[in-house]
């Protein structure tokens, strides 16, 4: 098997508060291979964005990696790097696409320069060559009249164009991995599908590898090869996108799939998973989904389930473990 581009093992990310440390991400392990798009799905507060910030080395001041490793291209451990080392990785080896393109761009800086400064920082090419390369890429991501747009300011562009600028910004350094944090959520539906088309094209033509965060299964199924389902900072299920949509194993994944609006279910009230993601300080030692699970058992309350492989899927749930009949103490 080919070596993964990104290999996250047993990652713990904890927040430090005056009253103690709380794990927001709990033994998370996954890989991203070359030219693979891996989706991360889950409700708000499940640790999707935190995971991407950990990979970028941009955790907030009160959060830190307390255990595990992030291996990038099998040699670099993205834990305990200096700020200077991080700077050489960001934009060049790993880059990021954000949800809200209006605020992600500097309002008083021409958009072309915001793209090209990645190359100015990371390469030694002449300014002219950099500008040409930028305009070339702007055309590739579907921006018309790129030469004129180069000198425009963000407020002069439409939402879709701004997101294309942000995407160009992430691509220009030719990174090995792109992390896209809900890149289509803030866009109109028509623009959304155009941007999804662009991502598909980039995957085919530029062979990019991506970590694609979204809560929209429709978007995920169009772009991703595999999906990780996060719940309360834990990986509860993972597998190929088609398997997860057709045959979800974990009760949480089932709930997520059931709550997708569907024409076939017209007239019925939309399904919602009762309850909410437990806040950071109220997580207990058993299965994190215990409180909201429709299929919970006594063991789920106290024992954290092991991860089980079922065909191409991996699931962390007592429904599939063999120790199901272990008496509860």
């Amino acid at each position: 098997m080919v070596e993964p581009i990104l290999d996250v093992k047993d990652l713990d990310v904890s927040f430090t508060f005056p009253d103690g440390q709380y794990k927001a991400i709990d033994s998370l392990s996954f890989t991203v291979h070359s030219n693979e798009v891996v989706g991360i799905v889950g409700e708000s507060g499940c640790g999707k964005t935190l995971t991407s910030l950990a990979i970028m080395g941009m955790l907030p001041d009160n959060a830190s990696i307390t255990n595990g490793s992030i291996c990038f291209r099998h040699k670099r451990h993205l834990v305990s790097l200096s700020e200077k080392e991080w700077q050489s990785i960001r934009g060049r080896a790993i880059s990021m696409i954000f949800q809200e393109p209006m605020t992600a761009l500097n309002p008083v800086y021409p958009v072309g320069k915001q793209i090209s400064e990645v190359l100015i920082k990371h390469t030694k090419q002449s300014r002219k060559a950099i500008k040409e390369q930028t305009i070339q890429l702007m055309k590739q991501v579907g921006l018309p009249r790129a030469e004129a747009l180069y000198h425009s300011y963000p407020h002069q562009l439409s939402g879709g164009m701004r997101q294309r600028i942000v995407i160009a910004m992430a691509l220009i350094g030719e990174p090995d991995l792109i992390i896209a944090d809900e890149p289509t959520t803030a866009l109109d539906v028509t623009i959304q599908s155009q941007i999804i088309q662009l991502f598909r094209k980039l995957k085919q033509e530029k062979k990019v590898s991506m970590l694609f965060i979204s809560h929209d299964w429709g978007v995920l199924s169009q772009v991703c090869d595999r999906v990780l389902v996060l719940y309360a900072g834990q990986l509860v299920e993972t597998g190929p996108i088609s398997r997860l949509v057709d045959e979800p194993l974990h009760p949480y994944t089932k709930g997520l799939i059931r709550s997708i609006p569907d024409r076939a279910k017209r007239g019925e009230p939309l399904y919602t998973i009762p309850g909410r993601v437990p806040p950071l300080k109220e997580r207990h030692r058993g299965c994190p989904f215990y409180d909201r699970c429709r299929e919970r058992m006594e063991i789920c309350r106290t024992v954290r389930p092991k991860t089980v492989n079922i065909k191409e899927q991996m699931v962390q749930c007592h429904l599939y473990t063999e120790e199901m009949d272990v008496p509860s103490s």
Partner: protein
Amino acid sequence: MRYIIYKLSTFIVTIALVSLIVFSVFQVLPGRPAQTILGIDADEQQVAQLEKELGLDQSLWEQYISWISGLFSGDLGESLKYQQPVIDILLDRIPVTFSLAMLSIVLTALIGIPLGIFIARTDGKWVSTILSMLTQLGIAIPSFWFGFILILLFSVTFKLFPSNSYVPWSEDFFGALQSFFLPALALALSNIAIMIRYLRNTILDQMKMDYVRTAKCKGLSERWIVYRHILRNAFIPILTIFGMIIADTLGGSIIIENVFSLPGLGSLLIQSISARDFPLVQSMVLYIAVLVVFINFLVDLLYKVIDPRIRLKG
């Protein structure tokens, strides 16, 4: 273009209002100028005679009209006390105040901006905390007191600067610079403190913005982000503060000129108010007001240069 026309018309309306207010304020002030010129011994008839000569017996409206029409032909009237054209007196004094204000503003920018950036970038460290505390002092202490301290320190104790001798630029460039330096510094200190605090807060606010996170994700260094991304955004609010600082400097020079015995507009203004020299005072106040309004006008135009988004709002 529409933006400029709009700003220009507000500029003109403001000036017209200011002239009206300036004129009426001095009519309401107690004390008759003719009486002041003639002394308290003069009788009512002499005072009335002089008022007639000076045109003070006309209706207020007529006086205002003749003052305004004089302004347009460059005739600001004649000083009651000095018995010479107001314009000559002003032209004599303006360069002194102008040099003082300019030097003070340059000092504010040269010291305030780099220190503000420095404090923002070292936020949370002890250097930054101490400097922040010092800026509190800088704002709290009035400029004339700084003036006294600077005179005591640099003129009396170390004898580095003259304290009471004014040297015009035409006579000796460095001598003039020396005579302006201490008063300009005294005037600048509190503005430097304001500038530092304001710039620091603006930069720290900007650091939380999404575009800064984006810039970090590109692998840009903090230095690059501060100088190329944040400052461009920070200069928009800073420009407003700068406009206020300039207006404040003009006002502050009135007191500082008296502390350092500089023959500028400030000292003249105080003398002519006590002498009820209305033509002179009116012209001076109007001049200062026009200057302040004009600076604000310039600031508005500069916004347009710095912030590309303004064009939409025009």
